[in-house]
């Protein structure tokens, strides 16, 4: 059974809006990422996305770009991220999704990556710049190892592609609420609800909506029509501000509890 599927089934049963969190692994270093992930899990996040830093994050806004630079400066690699997850997997309740650009995975090799992801206890993989047309090889490797392939859907995605993504994806579908790069916003995007409804018409897979979500009221609003809200840049910003401080984990835990409030 897929840990992701179970998690979303439970959320639907409880009629609770889910919270998916994103952090860039290795910001400020992998040791502190371990503590951050434990804190987020304690605070009750439903799915943990672990971002792999990449030198050219062209889908990311300034907050995650800076986090990526700090993570790379601390020597973080995909291999190191997989080792980290493996070492803390038993302590974490929530499903863990690897969030990466294509090249680090292709450099490691799709098959080797899939093997290492399974060993690490990874539940799902989302590759930002690997659209459906290019994803077949990696997806097959992941499917064979029981790992979900999370596909992104955007306001520009046609209905035809929505149907293909619904057929090929598993775990959940990640809907991007707006055009543009990642980054926190004050208000939710117009059309976000329609976006989710469009996906609902073609798929029963759970839908998590991301891009621009930073507050509990966003999470609650999204939860009325999507299965979960994704908070990335706003959480990464909390880590950026708390980076070196002794109470980083407390701050992160409090922020995630606040989001769930």
């Amino acid at each position, binding site marked *: 059974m897929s840990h992701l599927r179970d998690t979303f089934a439970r959320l639907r049963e409880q009629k609770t809006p889910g919270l998916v969190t994103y952090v860039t692994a290795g910001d400020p270093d992998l040791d502190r990422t371990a503590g951050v992930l434990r804190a987020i899990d304690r605070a009750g996040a439903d799915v943990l996305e672990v971002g792999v830093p*990449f*030198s*050219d*994050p*062209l*889908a990311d*806004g300034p907050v995650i*770009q800076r986090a990526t630079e700090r993570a*790379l400066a601390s020597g973080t*690699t*995909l*291999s190191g991220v997989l080792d980290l997850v493996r070492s803390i997997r038993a302590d974490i309740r929530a499903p863990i999704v690897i969030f990466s650009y*294509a*090249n*680090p*995975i*292709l*450099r*490691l090799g799709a098959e080797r990556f899939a093997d290492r992801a399974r060993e690490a206890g990874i539940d799902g993989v989302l590759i*930002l*710049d*690997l*659209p459906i*047309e*290019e994803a077949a090889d990696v997806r097959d490797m992941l499917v064979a190892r029981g790992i979900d392939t999370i*596909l*992104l*859907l*955007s*306001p*520009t*995605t*046609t209905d035809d*592609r929505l149907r293909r993504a619904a057929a090929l994806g598993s775990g959940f579908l990640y809907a*991007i609420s707006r*055009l*543009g*790069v990642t980054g926190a916003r004050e208000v939710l995007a117009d059309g976000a609800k329609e976006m989710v409804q469009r996906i609902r018409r073609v798929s029963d897979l759970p839908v998590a909506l991301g891009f621009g979500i930073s507050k509990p009221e966003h999470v609650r609003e999204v939860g009325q029509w999507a299965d979960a809200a994704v908070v990335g840049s706003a959480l990464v910003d909390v880590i950026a501000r708390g980076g070196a401080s002794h109470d980083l984990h407390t701050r992160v835990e409090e922020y995630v509890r606040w989001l769930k409030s």
Partner: protein
Amino acid sequence: MKATGSKDAVTSAGSDQPAFGRRDPDARGYFGAYGGRFVPETLVAPIEELTAGYFAARADKAFRDELDQMLKHYVGRPTPLYEARNLVGGSVVAGPERTRPTPSDVRVFLKREDLTHTGAHKINNALGQALLAKRMGKRRIVAETGAGQHGVATATACALLGLECRVYMGTEDMRRQALNVVRMQLLGATVQAVDAGSRTLKDAINEAMRDWVANVTDTYYLLGSALGPHPYPLMVREFQSVIGREARAQILDQAGRLPDVVVACVGGGSNAIGIFDGFLEDADVRLIGVEAGGEKIAPGCHAARFAGGSTGVLQGTRTFILQDDAGNIELTHSISAGLDYAAVGPEHAWLRDLGRTEYAHISDAEALEGFTALARLEGILPALESSHAIAYTMQLVPTLKPGSIVVVNLSGRGDKDVQTVIDSGGRVLSDPADGR
């Protein structure tokens, strides 16, 4: 002496009409194992719209005719093919004792893309894509630039066609190509500084793509080299293939036969693929691309992808890239901003696999020698990018059989590089000893 190309000859050779559609990549945009579309989901639909728009435009005679007319009357095509007699066998020391070439020597012809309006081959592609953008109803253009030549060409095309223009440029490139920054601004473009990564071309492309992904509905991304997701590598090659069509007709006219070797510098590889395209089916013509060897072939010190690279995915395409063991893109270095990039166009990687093209690299110091030689011996200031091709040709010529013919793509002019050459200790002042 018939030193320059005859426009009549080019026209009468029937080469002024593009032969679009030859050597297209497959439907997914692959040239062999290279190419494809590695983009975030938001860009898939806009890229499909672009692909449909491009294929419709190139099938439309009216579009081709409009572009041809602009290339002729606005850009100044065909550009001359000039036989550089002094460069071969000449010495950089000017003066009476300079060795003169003999009739049996190798003949070197320069395809003078430096003489186009705006001073580099980039205008061929910028005008083509700007016309396409207009046809597709896009009012706003974003572009990246390294050396500034593509930025200037795009700003020019936008001024001409009444389009809004924003050019992203790394701060390191803005410093070393300051003249081109001002040129773009004078043409009405906004130049947006990019202060990330190595502050060069790669970072400018990231930022241009971020702009595009946020503004896909009204914005056209005018990519300047044979790079990026399909259809850009194809589209840019086809807009640049005018160079090869002209050069082939001109060399037949002026030398009476095909060349033995064609040489071009390769950053992303648009000028090279443009001239190579004219000779790809001429199996006896060697096609040699010259990459930037920088200071030395070691990580971070060069941009010679075929010397220090491996296959990977960068900015939408699978090709040869410079990367570390973890799949992060390595920093690059070249004295020429236009060659200072970590990936090469996917079609080059494919043609190299097929054994149809060869690649060499030239160091910063050698490129400066090429720059100086062409200036002193032929009275032409080449762009530092093109100086790599010149320098390689100077090394190649002594190894060729007498009577061989070489065509070199002189892709751009060097005004923009004057400060870099001075800063690099290039010999710019007339040393009294030089004249004797």
